[in-house]
């Protein structure tokens, strides 16, 4: 078996509004329009993902929040209706997905060997969270690529930030080892919003884009600062600023997906492609891509963020 590799990572946020705005047949509520910049950003990302021809998509979602350890979907085929508990008026989605259980078990075992508490989720009646489903739908609406779903252990909130994100670093490196060991061509999806300051009331017409804008100017400036650094491949600076960004912009990257993805990719100092940025109920969302495949074996894998 050839050694597997991570061919790309995407920052792939999960506002259910994007699915609502798109009106796919799986989602019951129907919209007139909405959040086009982000939806079209995902359309660009879909094309690049398609060209990469991955065997598997791995997604780390903050809306599968676990207390005891890091959990992995471990049922080969999962179906059901996912209703967003926050926005049930926008997202009631009939999902059906296939899980790469072999890779999930490998990730689980590697993370355990790395010192983390891990669990496989084997209950066939489990309802997959809307964050996982929104990210997967937006990046690959055909649902024809197996997935590995990973929970967000609450360690960044329960422990201090350094310890919590330290666990995500370990989880990322374990994910990389598992991918290499199982020979997969893998794409990583970090299901995170950037600035997470949001409005507290929903417009009467949710897709009324005259009501949509950044909730916070400071949060917007933070998003642009971080995106600019990522676009220039300044990974070390990104991670130096990350704690301050999380604190001041209430950034959802605190939940760990971003660190997990970067650690798995080996903290590359490569420029990210920004497919698009937009606001959803005032939060800041960027669809971004790190195409590792383009660099082949020239890419240096780092154990931690280092200067370019």
């Amino acid at each position, binding site marked *: 078996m050839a050694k597997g590799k991570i061919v790309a990572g995407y920052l792939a946020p999960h506002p259910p509004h994007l699915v609502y705005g798109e009106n796919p047949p799986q989602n019951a509520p129907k919209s007139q329009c909405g959040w086009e910049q982000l939806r079209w950003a995902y359309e660009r990302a879909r094309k690049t993902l398609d060209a990469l021809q991955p065997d598997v998509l791995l997604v780390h979602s903050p809306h599968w929040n*676990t207390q005891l*350890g890091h959990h992995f979907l471990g049922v080969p085929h999962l179906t059901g209706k996912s*209703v967003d508990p*926050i926005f049930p008026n926008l997202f*009631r989605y009939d999902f059906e997905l296939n899980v790469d259980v072999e890779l999930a078990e490998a990730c689980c075992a590697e993370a355990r060997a790395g010192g983390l508490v891990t669990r496989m989720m*084997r*209950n066939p*009646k489990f309802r997959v969270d809307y964050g996982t489903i929104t990210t997967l739908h937006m990046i690959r609406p055909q649902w024809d690529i197996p997935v590995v779903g990973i929970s967000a252990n609450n360690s960044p909130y*329960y422990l201090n930030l350094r310890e919590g994100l330290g666990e995500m670093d370990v989880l990322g490196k374990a994910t990389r080892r598992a991918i290499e060991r199982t020979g997969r061509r893998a794409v990583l999806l970090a299901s995170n919003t950037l600035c997470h300051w949001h409005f*507290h009331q929903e417009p009467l017409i949710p897709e009324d884009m005259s009501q949509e804008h950044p909730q916070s100017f400071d949060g917007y400036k933070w998003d642009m600062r971080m995106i600019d650094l990522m676009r220039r491949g300044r990974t070390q600076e990104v991670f130096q600023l990350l704690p301050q960004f999380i604190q001041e912009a209430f950034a959802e990257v605190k939940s760990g997906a971003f660190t997990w993805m970067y650690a798995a990719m080996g903290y590359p100092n490569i420029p990210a492609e920004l497919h698009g940025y937009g606001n959803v109920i005032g939060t800041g969302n960027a669809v971004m891509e790190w195409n590792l495949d383009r660099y082949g074996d020239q890419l240096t894998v780092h154990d931690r963020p280092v200067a370019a």
Partner: protein
Amino acid sequence: MPVVSAFLVHGSPLPFLRPDNPPWRTLDAGYRAAAASLAASRPDVIAVYSTQWIAVLDELWQARPHSRGVHVDENWHEYGDLAFDIRCDVKLTEAIIAATPKFGVRSKAVDYEGFPIDTGTIIANNYLNPRGKLPLVIAANNVYHDWRTTQKLASTAVACADSLRRRVALVAVGGLSGSIIREEIDLATDHIASQADDDWNRRMLELIAAGRMPAILKACPQYAQEARVDMGFKHFAWILGGLGGSYAAAQVHAYGPSYGSGAAVIEFTPGAAKRAAPQRTAAKKSAKRVKR
């Protein structure tokens, strides 16, 4: 006052799914004692507030007339499924939704097939309303609502029930100390995560059982912070708001661990605090009798 009984209960699925596990037997038995008391109070409706139903926009209220199905907890999926059968008092819920804007809170009805009713609400309903005969009013925990707003939501729910001549059982679902055990353990060895948390929980339970309202209100913020209490102990605000700020007596039916965090089942007797003197001692003893 239409409130005929009130209960602060935990929302952990563990004692429900594994009632024979020694550390959880007390919590299971306590819930069953509370269920008997609730039935004896003959309510028309149960008004539930669960810390596990998170809202961030507006205040959400469950308004689906009948929800049934199987729920799998996102943490404890390996311990089994949670069947549920929940009816809602839609008329009362609509009245509450219409009333909350008067104090600046916009409310919304949630009436969707497949809506993920939270584990805490399901556990409370399964224990306290096992055949699902009584309708519920179910309020979400908007994480941006403070103690005062939560009290106001409860008092509004009770006032609306009064206007419709409903007898209400108040139920607040949430935990005590929030520190958890982060390692895999033998379930038979489950315990409160730290001695400090255990001490805090016991102190608060004694205060609550004694009905010492000024001391309770003074201690709550410190307790919430130092013991990392579930959602800042806002679920207790639901009880106090619904009871008009005081109660005649309180009995701690159970106290114990849920994978390190604190859990309890407490029954409150509605009424003026001054009538509670003879029962305070008994309630205090009950709290002290709680086994670790």
